[in-house]
């Protein structure tokens, strides 16, 4: 064991750091998916497309800024601006025109509708951004590398992945938990999630709450994509990968708590990163192995509570 550690310690450190930054992006997507499912009771397969579009939009905006010779530091706020734009432009349209119409209907129909939307958005991406990988690593280059002391060695790691990605995810986690627990609007979202009928009987505008929540969820997915865009090149299919992984996170965490999504994203992000470094052929299955193991022991998920409400 000691031998193994001294030989592989560096890899272990790298895997942990990689896992952390990966988990940060996955968390953003999964927490949005969780919020949206809570108020709409629709599993939105197209949620992953919003991640991809957020990434593409951020890359495009960053490339546009540098083509105009604007200062490079603008590429950092551009990530957030691009994500917000995607959320605000696409969120309300999708919710109003599509999802609202299938609310409360057969789950099969809902899945088909969001799957169709996913296919349409996927082709739309190819139409707009083509099939060649799109890369814009300005934010990463801008912030440079950090040498992390690790025993006798140092691990070089990008400051972007070390600070910006986990930092924004942490900010989102704390901010969202505070918002949902302490503010009026947040409590109304929780109320609609818990019991839509009772919320309506109280005069809460459930339709408005749903629209705003969906828009926020879409923006979070887009932010996940935007934040990942400087460290991973964007190719067709990235949306599908993301949605499947976020499903795994949401199913493993169970519905409800924001913190649950964070811990689970961390678990799955680290699990995947360790696989990449030590058993690369297991990379794709590790998240699902974790999911299956958790669900075998706790069918309601790590942080979910069993449904006891009447149907």
């Amino acid at each position, binding site marked *: 064991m000691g031998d193994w550690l001294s030989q592989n310690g560096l890899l272990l450190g790298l895997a942990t750091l990689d896992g952390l930054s990966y988990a940060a992006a996955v968390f953003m997507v999964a927490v949005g998916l969780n919020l949206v499912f809570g108020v709409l009771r629709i599993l939105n397969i197209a949620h992953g497309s919003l991640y991809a579009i957020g990434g593409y939009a951020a890359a495009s905006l960053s490339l546009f800024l540098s083509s105009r010779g604007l200062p490079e530091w603008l590429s950092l706020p551009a990530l957030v601006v691009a994500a917000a734009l995607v959320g605000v432009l696409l969120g309300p349209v999708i919710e109003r025109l599509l999802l609202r119409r299938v609310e409360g209907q057969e789950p099969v129909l809902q899945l088909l509708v969001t799957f169709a939307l996913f296919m349409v958005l996927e082709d739309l991406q190819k139409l707009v951004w083509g099939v060649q990988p799109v890369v814009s690593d300005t934010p990463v280059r801008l912030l440079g590398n950090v040498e992390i002391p690790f025993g006798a060695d140092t691990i070089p790691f990008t400051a972007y992945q070390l600070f910006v990605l986990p930092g924004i995810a942490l900010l989102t986690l704390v901010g969202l938990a505070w*918002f949902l627990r*302490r*503010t*009026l*609007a*947040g*409590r*109304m979202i*929780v*109320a609609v999630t*818990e*019991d839509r*009928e*009772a919320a*309506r*009987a*109280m*005069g*809460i*505008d*459930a339709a408005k709450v749903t629209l*705003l929540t969906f828009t926020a969820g879409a923006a979070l997915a887009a932010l996940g994509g935007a934040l990942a865009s400087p460290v991973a090149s964007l190719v067709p299919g990235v949306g599908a990968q993301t949605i499947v992984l976020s499903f795994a996170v949401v199913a493993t965490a169970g519905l409800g708590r924001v913190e649950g999504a964070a811990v689970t994203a961390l678990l799955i992000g680290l699990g995947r990163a360790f696989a990449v470094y030590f058993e690369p052929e297991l990379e794709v299955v590790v998240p699902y192995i974790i999911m299956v193991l958790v669900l075998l022991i706790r069918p309601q998920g790590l942080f979910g509570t069993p449904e006891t409400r*009447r*149907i």
Partner: protein
Amino acid sequence: MSVLLSARGLRIAFGGLKAADGIDLDVMEGEFLAIIGPNGAGKTTFINMATGYLRPQAGSITYDGQPILGLKPRRIVKAGIARSFQLPQLFTEHTVLENAALAIAARAGPWAPLAPLLQRRFRAEAEELLDRFGLLPLADRRADALNEGARKLADIAMAVALKPRLLLMDEPTSGVASAEKMAVVETLTRVLRDSRVTAVFVEHDMEVVARFADRVAVWGQGKIMALGPPQQILNDPAVLRDVIGVAPVGDGAGTGKEGAHAAT
């Protein structure tokens, strides 16, 4: 006394079951009207129709002279009609105080996204409301940690927070231990009379009806079979046989088929 809510010719059927088959019913301003009848008769259906949850197949309902059929539940709340459900609809993730504040805030209308739930004006009003219901000592408990009597009261307090002129209650004492029942009814009567709320309530416990109601409507086979003051209705041999015989006093556990209608 003027008519506050008026139903004419209401008809609705679920499959072969005629829950309402030509219902005419007037609710007078300021009165407490009890609706009694066997389980599955359509009493909850009436509340659902009057609050926008269910559309009758025929007939009309006017409130304060205005037609309200086709309005969304939220619009009807704004118009002044609140309701409570057979099962308390408290938000279990919230404390009792937060539940009350949420109802007050919902009535207050447009809300700033980052405004705190327990800001001063909501907190003060919520505490005052809970105090009227005798619930202030329980304000910081989570809603799912209350006993059934307190839960029922808190649930109705949330409906009262909406400042309704008319409150429709679905079995306000069902599930409450009989020792507690009368205390719950006393509190309800006092608060509703103080705030001049007109009340319609579905009830199975005839003791509660006798104590609480100004008038009693007997709902059976989709029709209003009898209507009048409690001492008259509750001593009517036909009512005793058809209604009270079927649903004896104290049968308030509330597994009624109407609940199933409300949910489907």
